[in-house]
């Protein structure tokens, strides 16, 4: 709440500018010039249309100047019959650009300029002609770095909202796919597109999403993370309640399951909601590779999720409180390697975990060349030298690195960081109360997970509340010919995904 700016005051001052465009072109230009004082990138191109003065106003860099030159300026320079000239005629006969509209108020005109449109005002006209010839620099569609796959589409979202919505449109050729638009941010006026399948997404959900989006009052949205934090159900929770993706196929798949996507201009990360806990341990590739390996990998990930969260805690608890639980020979090797270690196991674990986190953090933001140096340094210094110097024991290094590897297997980064963070409270609980503490911590965590909601959908579903038929796509992934229904958690009507019993068979055998 503290961070929300008092947007109302600024909008009030703008409201007084809700005045129509005057027919005197110079007054209008002066007004706009005043509004854009000290903005050197605003271009006023003065031209004569017939015998009247006219101005093309745009922000340099946001427009495609080639198109403006060829299809607007050159056309307008032609000899024109001045008497019959009016806005409609310019729109319909002269400017040969695909999208042209009109604007009647000064505020709207200014907004259009800020959007990257080119505005043409002509003397004696009481409206401005908005020419849509946006041309800001765009990154091309490339492979998403954060979610790479072996099998699956190689395209990823870009920073441009129109590119992103079109990428989804390219996947779903259906008029049921709706795209609603909003502008959020009093200063940035970031375009936000809400996408959903009209026949699948429950209308209440769409309504709720729109309501929460409309409530946002903030000066700027620079990334979809802003929106995510502003519309979450439980803002204090460690767990992400909205998924983000860089992949159009993931977004499309979720749309087909009745979820809503929020595309934000300026970021390749599209929000998907509502979401369940288990979606965060599923990768898009699970659906593309053969189902056997998907089942194996999902089970593996589930096990590793527990390891990532609990393994250091379990090791600490068992070696400091419950030595009787360890097999004798294993305990003796642990005892042998811990013989010269000066720290308690808990401190040892904290040192190693923190060192590991530091290494990871150091590696992320460094250029790739130096990143390699960091990993060598880390593996050598932290791994070998620390053990040889007798600072940490070898089993602890194994535990920490296994935990690290386990946390890397969580396909969604935002869930991985939650698990990474929760490891530390668990570690401390284990160090103070042993397995009892680990159990208490797990119970608190589970209770919290069961209580969480993502846009009204239970976060832990379909495990809690339990729904057997939905489990086909949680820990395992049944073959596509068995996935005949959509998740019924929130898709109420239209649950049939495909014809039943579509298992491939040989025609001959059947007869």
């Amino acid at each position, binding site marked *: 709440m503290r961070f929300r700016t008092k947007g109302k005051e600024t909008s009030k001052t703008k409201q007084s500018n809700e005045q129509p465009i005057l027919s005197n072109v110079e007054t209008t230009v002066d007004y706009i010039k005043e509004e854009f004082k000290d903005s050197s990138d605003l271009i006023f191109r003065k031209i004569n249309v017939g015998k009247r003065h006219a101005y093309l106003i745009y922000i340099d860099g946001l427009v495609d100047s080639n198109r403006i030159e060829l299809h607007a300026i050159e056309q307008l320079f032609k000899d024109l019959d001045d008497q019959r000239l009016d806005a409609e005629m310019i729109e319909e006969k002269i400017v040969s650009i695909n999208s042209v509209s009109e604007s009647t108020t000064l505020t709207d005109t200014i907004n259009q300029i800020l959007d990257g449109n080119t505005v043409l005002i002509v003397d004696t006209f009481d409206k401005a002609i908005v020419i849509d010839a946006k041309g800001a620099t765009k990154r091309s569609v490339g492979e998403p770095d954060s979610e790479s796959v072996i099998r699956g589409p190689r395209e990823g979202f870009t920073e441009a909202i129109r590119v992103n919505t079109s990428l989804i449109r390219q996947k779903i050729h259906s008029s049921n796919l709706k795209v609603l638009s909003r502008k959020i941010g009093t200063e940035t006026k970031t375009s936000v597109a809400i996408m959903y399948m009209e026949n699948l997404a429950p209308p209440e959900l769409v309504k709720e999403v729109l309501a929460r989006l409309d409530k946002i009052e903030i000066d700027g949205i620079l990334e979809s993370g802003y929106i995510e934090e502003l519309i979450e159900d439980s803002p204090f929770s460690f767990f992400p309640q909205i998924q983000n993706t860089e992949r159009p196929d993931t977004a499309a798949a979720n749309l087909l399951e009745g979820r809503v996507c929020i595309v934000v201009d300026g970021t390749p990360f599209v929000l998907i909601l509502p979401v369940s806990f288990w979606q965060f341990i599923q990768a898009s590739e699970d659906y593309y590779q053969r189902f056997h390996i998907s089942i194996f990998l999902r089970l593996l990930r589930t096990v590793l999720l527990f390891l990532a969260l609990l393994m250091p805690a379990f090791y600490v608890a068992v070696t400091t*409180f419950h030595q009787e639980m360890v097999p004798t020979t294993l305990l003796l090797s642990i*005892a042998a390697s811990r013989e*010269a*270690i000066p720290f308690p196991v808990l401190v040892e674990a904290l040192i190693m975990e923190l060192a590991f986190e530091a290494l990871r953090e150091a590696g992320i933001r460094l250029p790739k060349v130096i990143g390699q140096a960091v990993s060598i340094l880390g593996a050598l210094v932290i791994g070998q030298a620390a053990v040889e110097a007798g600072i940490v024991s070898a089993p602890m290094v194994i535990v920490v690195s296994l935990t690290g590897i386990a946390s890397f297997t969580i396909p969604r980064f935002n869930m991985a960081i939650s698990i990474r963070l929760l490891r530390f409270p668990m570690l401390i*609980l284990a160090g103070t109360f042993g397995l009892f503490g680990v159990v208490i911590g797990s119970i608190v965590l589970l209770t919290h997970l069961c209580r969480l909601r993502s846009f009204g959908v239970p976060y832990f579903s379909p495990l809690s509340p339990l729904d057997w038929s939905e489990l086909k796509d949680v820990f395992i992934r049944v073959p596509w010919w068995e996935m005949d229904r959509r998740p019924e958690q929130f898709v109420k009507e239209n649950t049939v995904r495909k014809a039943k019993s579509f298992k491939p068979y040989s025609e001959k055998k059947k007869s």
Partner: protein
Amino acid sequence: MVVFRFVFLLLSCILLLTGCWDRKEVNDLAFVLGTGFDKLDKNKYRTSVQVPLPGNSGQSGSSSGGGGAGGSAPYYVDSGQGRNIRESNDDLQSRMSRELFFSHRRIIIFGEELARNGFHDSLDVIIEQPQSRLSSSVFVTEGKAMDILNSTPHFEQFSSETIRELAKGGVRRSVKELINDIYNPGIDPILPIVSKSMTQNNDEENKKEEIEISRLAVFKDDQLGFFASTEESKGIKWIISEMDDQTYTYPVKDTKEMNIRVTNEKLKINHTVKNNLPKFTITINLEARVEQNEADLDFDNPSEYELAINKLESSIKKEVTSILNRSQEEGIDIAGLGYHLYQSDSLTWDKYWADDWRTILKDTEITTKINAEIIRNTSPGITIKE
């Protein structure tokens, strides 16, 4: 927000004030691998423990551990004395910088003297200690238990481990089974005997003490009855159904033996009552596989098959009756005949036999029946035609 802060404060108090109150670091503990109990004098006991020295274990990864594989043994044996087992433990602890930790004790050895005087009190200590495992194996030895712990067998790092592995392949009695045998009426416990022997090679320098488990000790309640001989031990094994998957060798012709492996042994006790006195029939049904057929018997020939079976049955019967007679004379019920009565006819058992079972047993008639069957032959090997 205030409530939240208050709760947070309380929670952090729990964490910070409790500290780690039960915390025991691995290197503050002395893991007892095996214990030996000896009786020294009247009301004087000795407990010896075998404790690994992690610094000497020479394991990889412990390069920091100082000694490494410096040649010294990876364990040591120490003992304490006292008026009972507990006190001797305390005596021992006063000499140890690390706390004795019994949860990994898998071997318990009773010395001969203690066994003769009854191990009941010593066993009670084990049960009373929450750290003890009921699954640890119990052994008895001729002589002092401490000597067994002190021996340095070749294969394993610790003699306790050797004993445990040896017991796996033969008769094994856990604390739990031992307690059952003592407290159940009409049955007496059996314990395997661990003994020291030397490596049998001609290399005098490389001779080492090895550990052997080949015989069994017969107890009368918690007191040692007698140490059975090797022959008798075989008989006991048949009676207590411990011959499954064990090998057995018996003569069929002059110097020709047959080696078999028992694949299935089933013991059945039946009784009849006459004049309030029970009469028992012990039936042992066994299936065996031939491992070596020295006499080249042809099992397709019924008479030769009969020969092999009869020799086997009579050989077993001889062993079984000899040990049964001996134990019967001493009033010891190794087969659990009384327990069989207690289970199948408990009213009569309580009424007539329970109080005086040992004397009744001495005059009881016991018949043994062996039904052997050879179900699988071996390859005939080289047959020389005459």
